[in-house]
């Protein structure tokens, strides 16, 4: 099993390397280079050349890539094209709000949806199961900004109309520095609620499928025929074998959270990493896009890797070799 995990880790490292290459090459397509963009079209060739030399743009592509990659590994994300400020510095609090929202979403959404999904698998074809399945299947198919709009309509406008006050901020701005966990949840209520719905729809559906899949196996039939009570069948016989797929589902959805957060941050207009990146895209600030894109992608790859390793570790055949 250890060799398998090492193998996966190596593949993960290679993937991160490949990803960085893809991102680097993509941004090289841009017409004009950093020097031209920063100094404007009117700058003299001499000035541009000087800046190119300073930024290392006169070096061969391979060297440029190496510089970028090593700096990235050391936490130096370079300087944005828009200003002279280093990207690492300006990321600071944006990073914090993105991580806060993701962590709170995961902490609330995942246990809840695991519970709901397992319940649905325990009582298949009941009204509860049907409604849950219908809602989660529908939510999977709609865009994130539709879910967000629904949240706003329900918890802000409808709430206001009925109770006379708004339950949450539509535009999430303000200083979050001294907030406790509950205050944070209140502050980010709508983004968290939206993201919870988005990942819950996936996690519920896939957890239910994973448990049902195990429930249809012959050893569960055998447990039934041995007179094992239903609760024990689910908790001891089924869940033990469904853990692998379920952990996999969780990791995949955390990975999804990483990219799903883009639309949500823009929708609720708060300053997170993703909004920062979108700004960079709009200003065609490719160094910024490159760096933050890499940050997101690396996180994503690592979470996928965890999913992969989790499914290896949860396999009894690999855990207890002959």
């Amino acid at each position, binding site marked *: 099993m250890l060799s398998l995990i090492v193998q996966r880790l190596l*593949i993960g490292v*290679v*993937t991160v390397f*490949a*990803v960085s290459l*893809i*991102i680097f090459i*993509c*941004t*090289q*397509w*841009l017409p004009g280079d950093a020097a031209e963009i920063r100094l404007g079209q009117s700058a003299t060739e001499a000035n541009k050349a000087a800046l190119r030399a300073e930024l290392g743009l006169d070096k061969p592509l391979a060297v440029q890539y190496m510089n970028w990659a090593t700096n990235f590994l050391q936490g130096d994300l370079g300087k944005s094209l828009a200003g002279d400020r280093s990207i690492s510095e300006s990321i600071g609090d944006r990073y914090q709000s993105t991580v806060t929202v993701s962590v709170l979403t995961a902490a609330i959404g995942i246990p809840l949806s695991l519970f709901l999904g397992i319940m649905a698998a325990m009582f298949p074809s009941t009204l509860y199961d049907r409604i849950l399945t219908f809602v989660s*299947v*529908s939510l*999977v*198919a*709609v*865009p*994130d*900004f*539709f879910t967000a*709009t629904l949240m*706003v*309509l329900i918890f*802000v*406008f409808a709430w206001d109309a009925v109770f006379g006050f708004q339950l949450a901020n*539509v*535009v999430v701005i303000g200083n979050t520095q001294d907030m406790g966990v509950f205050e944070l949840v209140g502050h980010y209520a709508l983004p968290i609620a939206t993201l919870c719905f988005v990942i819950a729809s996936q996690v519920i559906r*896939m957890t239910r*499928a994973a448990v049902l899949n195990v429930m249809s196996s012959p050893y569960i039939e055998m447990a039934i025929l041995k007179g094992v009570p239903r609760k024990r069948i689910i908790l001891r016989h089924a869940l033990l074998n469904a853990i692998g797929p379920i952990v996999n589902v969780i990791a*995949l959805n955390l*990975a*999804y959270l*990483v*990219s*799903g957060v*883009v*639309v949500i941050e*823009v*929708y609720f*207009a708060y300053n997170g990493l993703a909004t920062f*990146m*979108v700004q*960079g*895209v*709009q200003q*065609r600030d*490719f160094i910024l*896009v*490159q760096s933050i*894109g890499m940050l*997101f*992608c690396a996180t*994503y*790859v690592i979470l*996928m890797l965890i999913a992969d390793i989790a499914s290896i570790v949860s396999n009894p055949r690999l855990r207890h070799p002959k």
Partner: protein
Amino acid sequence: MSDFTTDKKAGHGEHYVRPFESEEIAFEELQDAAPSARFKLSVSGWIGAIIVSFWVFIGVFGPFLAPYHENDLPFPDDYSEYQAPKEGAFLGTDVEDRDVMSRIMYGAGRTIGIAFAGTVLAYFLGVVLGIGAAVAGPWVDMIVSRINDAFISLPTIMLGLVVVTAVGSSIPVLIVTAGLIYMTIVYRLARAIGMEIMVMDYVEAAKVRGEGIWWIVTKEIWPNAAMPLISDFGLRLIYVILFISSLSFLGMGVQPPQADWGLMVRENLGAFQTYGASLLPVVAPALAIATLTVGINLIVDDISAHAGGKLTKAM
């Protein structure tokens, strides 16, 4: 001698023989499962089909049926934005006083068209490469699959943003970007299906008969791969629609002043957030996408139930 009984309720230990007419009864071997039932839409499937047909109709004929051009102002004498629904603008007007309904009708074709073209491209590339990798042997397969894995391990929206930053946004770019990004998933699916068929005895039988690669791919593999792949198409289409409209929502998709559903949500979001202004300019296009994708999903559910539900719905 008749020391046996033909009474069904024969006591324990007795020799019972079921009455029979002749020694020569034919005991037919049981036929295998009856031919699988024809594909039929359920009630929800029909609802989905009606919704999807409606939007496709609007997508094709919308620009001819729309009361205004997408950038026309229905009320040239009244420049106030976000007018409430009234005669002449059933869904009200948007941030620039344009008719929301007309923009939705214009946007339908663009949203559906780009997503459809992108999915078709993804399918074409993914299937050719996937089946190719399954047939070509371990070396080609390993190289192509590793490269594919690297791409597949990128979050789609991030990859989309990076590409659009690099080359700028236009409809052809969107189609190609969506096609390339979703090709990776189609590739994986097509390769898996191709691999599964490749190890079937009937393919081996064709190989050992001396058939060439063309025959094996077109006559042995493709007819068996087509159904599962086609049933997955609808699902992929949903994801491409979501991808394109998310890009548009982020301002990186269809560019103004053209109308696109995701873009409409973005344009009108400011007023929606500050409350008080009309809700429809945001809710209507968002609802349009949601009904379209849920409609497709309802059909997909029927198809995957028909196909035995073994489709990779998770991806």
